[in-house]
């Protein structure tokens, strides 16, 4: 398990790591100092995840015929099928 917080995590990785830490803490077999370290890390991860949730904005891209991605503007209500 990572013992240090890496800011390069994705939300999913952070959440996964957080879940792992909680499981490990709940198992109750960590030395005390280690569990404090892990707890600090878990708080950092929670903060990171919260920030990620707060600032998240759905990104929508479209595949071009050439296989690359380009910005896609989601059609408004009046769009037709």
């Amino acid at each position, binding site marked *: 398990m990572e013992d240090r917080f890496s800011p390069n995590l*994705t*939300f*999913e990785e952070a*959440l996964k790591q*957080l*879940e792992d*830490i*909680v499981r490990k*803490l*709940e198992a*109750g077999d*960590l030395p*005390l100092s280690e*569990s*404090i370290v*892990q*707890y600090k890390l*878990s*708080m950092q991860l*929670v903060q990171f*995840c*919260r920030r*990620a*949730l707060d600032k*998240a*904005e*759905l*990104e*929508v*891209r*479209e*595949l071009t015929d050439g*296989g690359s*991605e380009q910005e*896609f503007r*989601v*059609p*408004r*209500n009046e*769009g*037709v*099928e």
Partner: protein
Amino acid sequence: MISPSPSTVFTVTQLTGLIRRRLEADPQLSRCQVTGELSNFKHHSSGHMYFTLKDDTARLRSIMFSSKNKNLTFSPKDGMRVVCSGSIGVFDRDGQYQLYVEDMQPDGVGALYAAFVELRDRLDKEGLFASDKKRVLPRFPKTIGVVTSPTGAVIRDICSTLARRYPLAKVILAPALVQGPGAAKTIVDGISRLTTGTQPKVDVIIVGRGGGSLEELWPFNEELVARAVASCAVPVISAVGHDTDFTICDFVADVRAATPTAAAELAAPNVEDLAVQLNGLLGRATSAVQSRIVHFRHRMDMANSSMARAHPIVGIDRLRERLDYHEGQLRERVQQPLRKANRRLDDARLALLRIRPHEQLMRQLAVVESRSNRLREIASALLAVRRTRLSELAATLEALNPMAVLGRGYSIVTKRDGTVVTSVSHVQRGDVIGIQLQDGTIPAKVSGEKQEDDYGRPIQSKLDI
């Protein structure tokens, strides 16, 4: 009134039964197909469907039991033209004949429907729909692929749902035709473009289209689409048509969603749930650490108290305690006899004082005194007696004293050594002798030989008294 032919009088039930049996015995009516337009369609809560098939000039009451209609792949609606197959029967209570529908298909698509059924059954047999082939959707998809029309409600609903629920995701749209010739090819193409490459671009794919007729939904019933979905590298959510319009794509997909919105909801979690989950995780972490700390504190307390018990000071204290004890014991054992002795001494002193030794002494002295006086008296009395007796004896002795004889003329011859010469044989000539008289001694020398009497005995002087 006279009847032309006297016939049996039936009860209504009998007659209705007769009609029922007659109708049901007709092979044409017991297995027939009929086309018409649905009207008065009712899907009863019991699950049975009641409706009327009609055309311009006739109506046919129809019923489709739930056991038959549960496999319908479309939802019948009023005005829909359908082909029904079934048998004619009679409902005794209403005196009504009606069509008992075994199967119902939308009319005009008979060929398509047959193709649909054929492909569905074939792929089913092949195991493409098997539940153990269904993959689990990723919990937190980073990228969600969508294969659908770039215009229209599907992509809009999906994007708005994801923007609301899970804006962490990235959506990649693979634009596709969703109806008409060539549409299936674009759908397959979209799936493959989202998943080819060393790494699939997406974690999950939504294949979607709004509702429509069987013809309109047809691309999603094509085998190449079904195979593309089945072999897709990532899980596929099918959201084709509406709730009741099933397509092959729906069967083969890992998850079927009733609507595009539902597909988006299935594809990703809700951030609000995630926020709650985060709080829950933090809470769990906190209480886990707290209980850990409580645990360690408890252990520390335990260790501390046992350490206190094991501390050398405690050992010393314990030794000191023992020392004190022994000291006490010792003191007790030494001092007690001492105290006892002291007590006895005191007692003795008291007793001594009680017996007044001085007075005793005086008393004893008095006794001694009196006894000594008495002794003295006795002694002097005895002495007087003895002295008297002594005087008497002395007088007697005086009378017996040989010296006293000297006074009467006797003498005593002694040799030089003082021995008394009592025989002539004791001396020889020349011997110096002393002749003791009353008032002194005459030294003399023996000058002659001894003279013996006639009997050879020396002559003894005899007192002739």
